[in-house]
């Protein structure tokens, strides 16, 4: 349809053979001579003062090389959010207080994991237990104990990146205790909007904390060379340059002395972008001891201490006209970010950021609060705010449609945004396939014949089926360090090319899609491209594989680098053929004169000629790209102003469920997704991203939930934390909308995150359709279904 020969095709991944043969090296596979092993002692209390730590016995244990406590590194601060308004609140090891069960207290390096483990049991910590809070509602009360009494006053990362100094403490803006972040956005006149509405509805929804469950446990290997002063790191990461920045700063090493080296990442889903204490500790210990140090977390530590999705309570009041047109919406969200800020201020910003691109709401007010509690820390997770807010808003819209006797699909179509719309912050939708996505999804799930809402009466009987639909939006990269991506393309004597990119391959297929972009732009085959990536020393800077910027931001950098290489190649060919560059065309790795195709030279000849005739000058193309060039328009987390992203990905998703009214069990039978990712660079990889999102979304809708009791995690294992298994796989239809994003390479934009978000609302709405009752909290467990059915029966009687 496009005339492209490499992009758009479902070509096999270039990292596939390494991965199916067991040759792919992940961080946990790295083994260096003389390597020591680190283990971390963690707090057993949700909130306590550290009175004393005695490490003598541990240090005396044969095989122990070092024991560190908070006092050794008391001046170190870092955090995923480190802005003038929200300065870093994390330390690698607790200094005076612990704030959640799992908080890092001490670390041991020893010659074996077993000895390190034994040494932990010899460390004596005296705690004074403090009162703790476990819900945001408790935590904001005036009499609640404070988790963080003071704010760090040093320079924040964002000040180093050019943000203005802090003017005042954000906590003076509110009387609420334990606030870790607040976003407030309003436009139009929301009260006037409600007065103009024909129907107003208020609802409250609650989402659960969920785990990323990347199969590779988090790990770090650090190897410091004392003579050269260089630190080598192998990390579980999603962004090597952000990790390098944060770790070099925390370790007080010049940035060029820190090298993050290539290893494959075994899944991340948002959970491997924060800087973690185990990474800092491995590096610090290696620097102290002059030997390589490896720290690998066990699965319980991964569940407990490497971030979870924020559980969020969402209040929504929406006013609509009789035909379902939204006239006003007032949204209040309160997110539990645990003992440290994690990504609290970001998630409450993103709950707005992923809500307002979907529907036109003329009068709108949004307030998001992120709150400290003595629960585990919450951070980014696939969709980051989108699953929570999309679930709530689309659940309520489904209820509104029912109230008014309208078809929810018609209500969605009436309210969605379209291509060309300018959002209230100034972002322009240069592509938007929402309408096509909704229509395709509704057709794909057989909406009009399967939606029980339209039937005169629901069938009785044990198994009941229903369908539901929901939408989502997602950025294609946003402004975060290092704010841009660069790429290099080196051409070889045989006409092939090597791509140098800082992207991190974590399963999303970036090596393959970026190689396809290069191949297409340069005019070679995918088999002619090799990729050097994931190494801060060998590759130019990269935004990283988070915020879904891989295709658009890194993709554009690669496309520009390939275009630069191609220009140089044609220049050289033009010289040799004795014609102007504008007279040349390329096909099949040959450059020829358009008017006289017999006059041609191969890419290989032109590249060789460049080396021979130009004093060894090889052809190296470079390219760089930044999402938004206007540096003064970074988004404000607090006010939601500034530009957010240069392209939004969208999706519509529908679910058909079957509810067993005897056991309460819900089965997802069918899942249909139409994702508007612009041009799909690799069809198979795009489908794989969507299918992974659908599975994760279905799991989080129906079974996944971090269970906490007074801050203690009760299900830190795959046996007790129930994520989808192969037999849970629904019939699925995964399609893409036929759009092109003008800002994207070949028209591509986000695909890896959005489709997790629509599944939650689609499933919740389908369950309602099936049993006629609404369940306002996730996950929709058998217990909740049975309770809802019971209450419904009581109400009938």
């Amino acid at each position: 349809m496009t005339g492209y020969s490499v992009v758009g095709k479902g070509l096999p991944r270039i990292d596939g053979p390494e991965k199916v043969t067991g040759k792919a090296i992940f961080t946990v596979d790295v083994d260096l001579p003389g390597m020591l092993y680190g283990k971390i002692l963690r707090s057993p209390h949700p909130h306590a003062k550290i009175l004393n730590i005695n490490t003598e016995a541990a240090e005396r244990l044969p095989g122990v090389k070092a024991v560190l406590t908070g006092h050794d590194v008391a001046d170190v601060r870092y955090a995923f959010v480190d802005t003038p308004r929200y300065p870093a609140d994390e330390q690698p090891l607790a200094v005076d207080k612990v704030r959640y069960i799992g908080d890092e207290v001490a670390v041991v390096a020893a010659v074996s994991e077993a000895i390190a483990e034994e040494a932990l049991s010899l460390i004596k910590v005296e705690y004074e237990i403090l009162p703790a809070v476990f819900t945001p509602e408790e935590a904001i009360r005036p009499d609640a104990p404070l988790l963080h009494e003071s704010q760090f006053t040093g320079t924040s990362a964002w000040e180093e990146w050019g943000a203005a100094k802090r003017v005042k403490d954000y906590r003076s803006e509110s009387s609420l205790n334990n606030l870790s972040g607040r976003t407030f956005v309003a436009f139009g006149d929301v009260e006037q909007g409600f007065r103009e509405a024909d129907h107003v509805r208020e609802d409250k929804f609650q989402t659960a904390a969920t785990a990323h469950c990347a199969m590779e446990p988090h790990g770090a290997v650090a190897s410091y060379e004392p003579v050269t002063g260089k630190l080598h790191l192998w990390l579980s990461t999603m962004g090597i340059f952000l990790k390098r920045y944060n770790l070099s700063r925390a370790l007080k090493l010049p940035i060029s002395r820190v090298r993050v080296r290539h290893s494959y990442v075994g899944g991340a889903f948002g959970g491997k972008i924060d800087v973690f204490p185990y990474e800092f500790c491995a590096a610090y210990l290696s620097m102290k001891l002059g030997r390589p140090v490896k720290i690998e977390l066990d699965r319980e530590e991964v569940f407990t201490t490497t971030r979870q999705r924020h559980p969020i309570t969402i209040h929504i009041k929406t006013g609509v006209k009789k035909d379902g047109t939204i006239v006003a919406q007032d949204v209040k969200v309160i997110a539990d970010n645990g003992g440290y800020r994690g990504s609290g201020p970001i998630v409450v910003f993103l709950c707005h950021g992923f809500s307002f691109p979907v529907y036109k709401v003329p009068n709108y007010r949004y307030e998001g609060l992120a709150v400290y509690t003595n629960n585990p820390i919450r951070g980014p997770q696939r969709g980051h705010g989108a699953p929570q807010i999309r679930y709530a808003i689309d659940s309520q819209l489904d209820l509104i449609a029912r109230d008014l006797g309208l078809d929810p699909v018609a209500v969605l179509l009436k309210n969605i945004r379209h291509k060309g719309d300018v959002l209230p912050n100034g972002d322009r939708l240069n592509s938007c396939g929402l309408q096509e996505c909704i229509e395709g999804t509704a057709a794909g799930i057989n909406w009009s014949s399967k939606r029980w809402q339209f039937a005169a009466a629901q069938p009785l009987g044990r198994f009941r089926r229903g369908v539901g639909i929901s939408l989502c939006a997602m950025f294609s990269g946003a402004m975060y360090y290092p704010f841009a991506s660069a790429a290099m393309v080196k051409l070889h004597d045989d006409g092939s090319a090597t791509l140098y990119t800082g992207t991190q391959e974590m399963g999303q297929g970036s090596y393959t899609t970026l190689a396809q972009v290069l191949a297409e732009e340069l005019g070679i085959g995918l088999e002619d491209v090799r990729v050097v990536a994931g190494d801060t020393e060998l590759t130019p800077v990269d935004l990283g594989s988070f915020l879904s910027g891989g295709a658009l931001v890194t993709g554009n950098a690669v496309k520009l680098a390939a275009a630069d290489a191609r220009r140089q190649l044609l220049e050289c060919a033009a010289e040799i053929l004795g014609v102007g560059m504008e007279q040349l065309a390329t096909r099949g790795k040959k450059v020829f004169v358009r008017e006289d195709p017999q006059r041609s030279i191969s890419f290989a000849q032109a590249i060789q000629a460049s080396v021979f005739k130009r004093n060894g000058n090889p052809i190296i193309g470079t390219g760089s790209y930044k999402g938004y060039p206007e540096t003064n328009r970074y988004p404000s987390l607090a006010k939601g102003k500034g530009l957010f992203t240069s392209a939004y990905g969208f999706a519509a998703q529908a679910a058909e469920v079957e509810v067993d009214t005897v056991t309460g069990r819900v089965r997802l039978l069918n899942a249909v997704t139409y994702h508007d990712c612009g041009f799909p660079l690799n069809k198979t990889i795009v489908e794989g991203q969507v299918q992974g999102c659908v599975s994760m979304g279905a799991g989080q809708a129906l079974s996944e939930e971090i269970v906490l009791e007074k801050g203690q995690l009760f299900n830190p294992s795959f046996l007790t934390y129930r994520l989808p298994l192969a037999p849970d796989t629904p019939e699925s239809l995964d399609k893409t909308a036929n759009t092109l994003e003008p800002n994207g390479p070949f028209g591509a934009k986000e695909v890896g995150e959005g489709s997790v978000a629509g599944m939650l609302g689609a499933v919740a709405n389908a369950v309602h359709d099936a049993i006629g009752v609404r369940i306002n909290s996730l996950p929709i467990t058998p217990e909740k279904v049975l309770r809802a059915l019971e209450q419904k029966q009581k109400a009938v009687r």
Partner: protein
Amino acid sequence: MKRIITLVVNGEQREVAVEPDLTLLEVLREDLGLTGTKKACNQGECGACTVLLDGKPVSSCLVLAVRAHGKAVVTVEGLAENGRLHPLQEAFVTYGAVQCGFCTPGVLLVAKALLDTNPHPTAQEIEQAIAGNICRCTGYVKIIEAITAVAQNQNI
């Protein structure tokens, strides 16, 4: 006290001195350098460490190395022969059944054990066979497609 055990790993006899509490997973990864077998939960719940022990899939994190003495072990490194990928490996690449690749070795070995005993399984039998292998990336769709393709001897 260490004991000497003999394993036939991917067709080659190997002798290893092991502590009695060492698992087969640890011996494979740490003593024999076969890091293709992955440790993801270390408690027998995810299937990432699956190897074939005398042809049957086992979670190698739950098998004491001394119990494997004298037995044949096949790991992911033993699937390809003379540099030629096994049809399942080929299909996993072609069908996009691999994303991050961390669960892949375990799934491949379970699939091999399935097809060795049941060459033409139904989709349901495939789903049941890999029910003990957690994959967070793919939603299983393309894994099932890849195994089905091999079972049906489709051209890959």
